[in-house]
């Protein structure tokens, strides 16, 4: 197999159920050792796409190639390269963590007891692994879910909304864990999410899907204007403040509500603007950088046409 070949290759993938096209003409590639984000609002076709990637749903059209093997024709060879969690990590609650792992290990070849042990250590479940899964917290189930995905030493890990239902600490933990995995095991990760911020923090490249179609593929860095940040200003009186801000060349107002004004501007010039406002007798009651949302991004990408 070619070393430089992409781990996951998707070409012109479509799925039609009844008359409705849920996914249309999707194409992207995931390279070795890359964390690839799959971003889109709920109902955009993310889960359907992921289900096609792991062979749960038959594509209407198109091709999926994993590790060089076409998924449709060489299912066993292709799926052996994949570890996945589709939506929630649903494991058998009436079995222990270890029994769950052994259960799935029996469904593949070459999973040794040492490797199972190693994975349990990796996901830090050593202490509770022999307890029934129904006693686990959501975070522990998530980790056990990742453990079962790693059983087959996959080349690519496919995670569908892995942070769903996790608390902020759990999310941070997961993020660190995925980075560690990529770093230590050298595998690729494919993560879907509807939260832009999450993808920004975790991924190298991203494909954005909306209404079943890819609207953007590229590095995450280029996605959001890094030199400009969205800033929330609380001013008193607001209207005269808005006038002052609008006169500045490096400030681009985007949205105004009754209490605040949102603008795009470079972070390092906030102090300068603040001084100018104070000089003109306008009270600044609050300044806050705001994380851009997926909606903002869609506005940016499509010029406001596909507001979701």
């Amino acid at each position, binding site marked *: 197999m070619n070393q430089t070949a992409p781990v996951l290759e998707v070409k012109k993938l479509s799925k039609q*159920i009844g008359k409705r096209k849920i996914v249309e003409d999707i194409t992207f590639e995931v390279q070795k050792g890359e964390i690839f984000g799959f971003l889109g609002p709920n109902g955009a076709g993310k889960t359907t796409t992921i289900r096609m990637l792991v062979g749960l*749903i038959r594509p209407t059209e198109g091709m999926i190639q994993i590790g060089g093997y076409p998924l449709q024709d060489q299912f*066993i060879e292709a799926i052996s390269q994949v570890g996945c969690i589709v939506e929630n990590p649903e494991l058998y609650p009436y079995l222990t963590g270890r029994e769950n792992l052994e259960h*799935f290990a029996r*469904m*593949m070849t070459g999973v040794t007891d040492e490797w199972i042990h190693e994975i349990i250590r990796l996901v830090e479940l050593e202490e509770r692994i022999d307890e029934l899964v129904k006693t686990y917290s959501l975070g522990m189930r998530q980790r056990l879910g990742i453990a079962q995905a790693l059983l087959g030493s996959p080349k690519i890990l496919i995670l569908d909304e892995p942070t769903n239902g996790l608390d902020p600490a759990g999310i941070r933990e997961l993020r660190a864990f995925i980075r560690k995995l990529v770093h230590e095991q050298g595998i690729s990760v494919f993560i879907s999410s509807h939260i832009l911020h999450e993808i920004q923090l975790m991924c190298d490249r991203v494909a954005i899907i909306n209404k079943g179609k890819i609207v953007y593929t590229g590095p995450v860095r280029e996605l959001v204007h890094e030199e400009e940040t969205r800033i929330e200003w609380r001013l008193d009186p607001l209207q005269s403040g808005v006038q002052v801000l609008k006169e500045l060349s490096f400030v681009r107002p985007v949205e105004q509500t009754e209490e605040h004004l949102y603008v795009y501007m470079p972070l390092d010039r906030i102090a300068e603007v603040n001084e100018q406002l104070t000089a003109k007798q306008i009270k600044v009651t609050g300044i806050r950088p705001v994380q851009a949302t997926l909606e903002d991004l869609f506005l940016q990408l499509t010029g406001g046409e596909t507001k979701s």
Partner: protein
Amino acid sequence: MIGLVYNEMLKMVRKKRLWVILGILVILIPIFTYAQAQTLERAAKQIGTSDWKVVLKQQIIDQQNRLTSSRLPEEWKAFIKLNIQQQEYYLKNNIDPTAPGAPTFMRKFVEESVSLFLPLLVVIIAADLVSSELSSGTIKLLLTRPVRRWKVLLSKYISLLFATSFIVLSTAILSYLLSGVVFGYGGWDLPVLSGFQEKNGALLTEFVHLMPQWKYLLMAYGLSWLACITVATVSFMVSVLVRSTASGMGIMLAAIISGNLLMQLSPTWGAIKYFAFTQLRLTDYLSGRPILIEGMTLPLSIGVLGAWSVVALITAFVSFSRRDVLA
């Protein structure tokens, strides 16, 4: 494949369904035993004498008198001779036919439970075998392994066959052990009449013969195993097609109960014999209980059950390996 079947057996055992079934048997068999003992006691009272040997001797004499009648057809004579043989065996071996041992209870129990009770137990296991994986979402983890879908399903079916056999076997063992406490554990060699045949609405007795009870029991439990396998296979298909375990069970219960009802309500409607669940009473062919529907024979019954099983299996495998998992 062995690993896959082991997986399924493990899940079945850990889900505690098999224990529930054993529990049901352990509770119900003593109740049936008590009921049977009560019936026998009442029957003894009606005869009026507590000495069963006197009754038996009188019966033998009555039948011998009938044999001397010249108007009696030959096949009837043969049948009566068998009856006498049976009763003489009871006398000689000091067996009270009204107070039989545990093997006789086993026989009666399986004859009564084959059409409803055993199928219900089988449905408890079979109905959620696939649907529980669908509704809990674990199917996604099961089908994203390097194993073909049909193999996953086959492993489930094989473990279902094991479980069904286990149910029939434990029914046999438990009904022997538990009823023996009241009836005693003897009676394996008791001669039992069998070989009845039906033709044009009349019961043919020409092939009737005596066989030891253990042999009869083997055949009876074998036939009920066959009936249970059919129930299991059809439930298995329902479990593949219906996502909710509760509705799957409901469908199967409705089907089995209507099979029983149809037999009782409209035996003249010949077409119902092609409905699998009217054919579960295979043991009737052994015991010679009048068969209600015209034209029913053991090969036909087994053929109908077999055909249903094959169609159910094909439907289950085709549907399971082709469908999109949207759950």
